C-alpha cells in the first residue's frame, strides 16, 4: 500500500458559503473521526491539506477557502468532476470518550470548519451529551458560513453567534468571541471545551475558559500546520517534538501549553 497514491473520487455536491468559501461533498467512503483531515490532490495544481467537516461513512465534506493555487483551482470544480483524496489522517476527536459531558464548541472564522464534524456527531447522537453549546465568531455577517446548519443547530442546541463588524440586519451579538463566552454561565464541572480559530483567538478563549474554572486538561484545540506528507515523516508539521498530522491535529491544551514552535 502506497500512502502517497491518491484515490480519485467524484464531487457530489458543491455549496457556495461566502464569496471565497465553498463546501465540497465527495464520494469518499471511510470511517473517520471529527477533527481528522485529508490531503486533496488536483493534478497539475498540487496537494493541500483540508479539514474534514462532516461525520458520515457515506461521504466526506470539506470547506475550502480560495487562498492559493490549489484552493482557487478547486473552486473551479463542479459536481461530477474528480479530485484526488489521501487520508483520513490525524487523531481526530474521540467522541465516545466525551459521552455525558457538557460540550463547549468554540470556533472563529475558518476554525469553525473542523468543529462542524463534532456538531454533526452530536446531531446524530443528541442524547450522548449533557449539553451542546456552540459559540461562533466571524468578521462580519457576509463571512458567516454553515448558515443552514446553524439554523438546525439553533433548534437542537445552544448557539451563540457574534461578528466583529455587524450590519444593520444583524440581530445577534457583536464583538470578539470572548465577550460571548463571558456572558454565559459555563459549566466547568464535567465540561469539555473544543476550540479552533486564529492563534490570537485561541489564546484569549483559553484565558476565558480558565477564568470560568476550566482546567487545561478540559480544553482541546485543533492546531494547523503545513501537513505535506500526512503520515508523520516529512517534518513540516512539527510543533516542538509533536507531529500535527500524527499526534494531532487535535491536542489537549495541557499537553501542548509549554511547547515552543
Amino acid at each position, binding site marked *: 500500500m*502506497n500512502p502517497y497514491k491518491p484515490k480519485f473520487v467524484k464531487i457530489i455536491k458543491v455549496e457556495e458559503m461566502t464569496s471565497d468559501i465553498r463546501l465540497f461533498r465527495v464520494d469518499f467512503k471511510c470511517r473517520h473521526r471529527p477533527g481528522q483531515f485529508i490531503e486533496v490532490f488536483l*493534478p497539475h495544481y498540487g496537494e493541500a491539506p483540508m479539514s474534514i467537516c462532516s461525520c458520515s461513512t457515506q461521504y466526506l465534506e470539506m470547506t475550502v477557502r480560495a487562498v492559493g493555487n490549489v*484552493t482557487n483551482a478547486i473552486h473551479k470544480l463542479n459536481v461530477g468532476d474528480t479530485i484526488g483524496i489521501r487520508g483520513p489522517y490525524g487523531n481526530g476527536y474521540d467522541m465516545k470518550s466525551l459521552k455525558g459531558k457538557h460540550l463547549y464548541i468554540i470556533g472563529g472564522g475558518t476554525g469553525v470548519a473542523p468543529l462542524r464534524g463534532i456538531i454533526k456527531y452530536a446531531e446524530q447522537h443528541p442524547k450522548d451529551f449533557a449539553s451542546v453549546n456552540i459559540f461562533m465568531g466571524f468578521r462580519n455577517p457576509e463571512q458567516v458560513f454553515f448558515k443552514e446548519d446553524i439554523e438546525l443547530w439553533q433548534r437542537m442546541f445552544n448557539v451563540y453567534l457574534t461578528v466583529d463588524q455587524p450590519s444593520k440586519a444583524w440581530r445577534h451579538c457583536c464583538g470578539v468571541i470572548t465577550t460571548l463566552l463571558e456572558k454565559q454561565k459555563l459549566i466547568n464541572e464535567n465540561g469539555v471545551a473544543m476550540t479552533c480559530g486564529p492563534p490570537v483567538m485561541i489564546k484569549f478563549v483559553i484565558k476565558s475558559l480558565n477564568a470560568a474554572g476550566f482546567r487545561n486538561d478540559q480544553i482541546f484545540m485543533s492546531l494547523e500546520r503545513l501537513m505535506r506528507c500526512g503520515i508523520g515523516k516529512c517534518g*513540516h508539521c512539527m510543533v516542538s517534538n509533536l507531529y500535527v498530522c500524527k499526534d494531532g491535529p487535535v491536542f489537549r491544551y495541557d499537553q501542548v501549553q509549554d511547547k515552543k514552535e
Partner: protein
Amino acid sequence: MQLEALFNKLKHGRRIVAPVSREGYFVYETVHNFKEIAIDFTLPIYPPKEVMLPQHEPVYSFKGANVRATIPSEKTVIFGVRPCDVRAIGVMDNFMFSGIAEPYYKARRENTLIVAIQCAKQFENCFCDVFGSFKLEKGHDIGLARGSGGYLIKAGSKLGEDTLKSLKIKQDSKLPQANFKITKPHQQFKARIGELDKLSDSKHWDTAATECFSCGGCTIVCPTCQCFDIEDHSAPNLATGKRIRTWDSCQLKPFTRVAGKYHFRGKRTDRFRHRYYHKLVWGDNCVGCGRCVTICPTKIDMREVVLKL
C-alpha cells in the same frame, strides 16, 4: 581478507557505492572498479543516506486520474560505512519504518547491504565519544576492521551471514572494537545535553543564531536528517505530470509556511533551536559525526553553542 577481493565478489548483481576523493573531500559515489575507491578515506562529507533516500525520488507519474507508482528494487552495497553512520542509518530506519512506513525508503533500505569499516582513530570534528557511536554493534551487514596484513571480517546480520556464506568468504571469530575515551570538554557537553530541556529560554539561542545563514548545509550533511518536500511537476502540455519527493530542511524559512504566507518558525532563532532539540533532546538523533561542524560556513560548533547556554 583483502578489500579488493571482497569488492570483486560483492559487485556481481549489485551496484556498489563507495567513498571516492573529490576536490579535497571524500564523497560516496557509484564505483565500478576497486581502484576508484579512496581506501584511506576519513569521513565522507556526505553521509550514505543518499542511497536509501535520494535527493530526488520519483514517487509516481500521473495522466489525469491515472497514477502509476514504481517502487525501486535495485540491489546496492554501501562499501565503507563508518560505525557512526551505521548507527545513524539505524536511527533513520526506526523513524521511517514506524507508523505508516515510508515505502520508497523501505524498498531501497531492504535492498541495501552495508559494509562497515572500523575507525582506527577519530577524525577532525568527531564527537562520537559523546554517544559511543564509534562502536560497531548492530545495523551493519558485514563488518571490517584493520588487522595485520589485511582486514578482519565478520557478519553483523543474517543478511551478512548469508552473503558471506554464498560468496564462500571465511569469517573471523571476532572484530576488535574501537575505544575512544570521552574527552573532558565532551563530558561537559554531554552533561549539558541532559539539561537542555530546561534551557529553551536561554538568551544564548539568539546570540548563536545570529551567526547562522539558514543555508541548510548542516541538514544536508547530517546522516539522520530526512525531512522532505513533495513537489508536483507538470509536462508543458499539461497532459502528464509526476510527483517527486525531494530533500527539504527545517533551517530554510519556507519550511513552515502556511496559506496566508504565515511562517510558524519565521524567526531564525526558532529554526536554529528546533534542530538542536530534534537532534539532542527528542530522541537519540545525533551520532557525533561532526559533519555539521565541518560544513558550516560560519563555523558554528554544536558543542560550543550548547556549552554557552
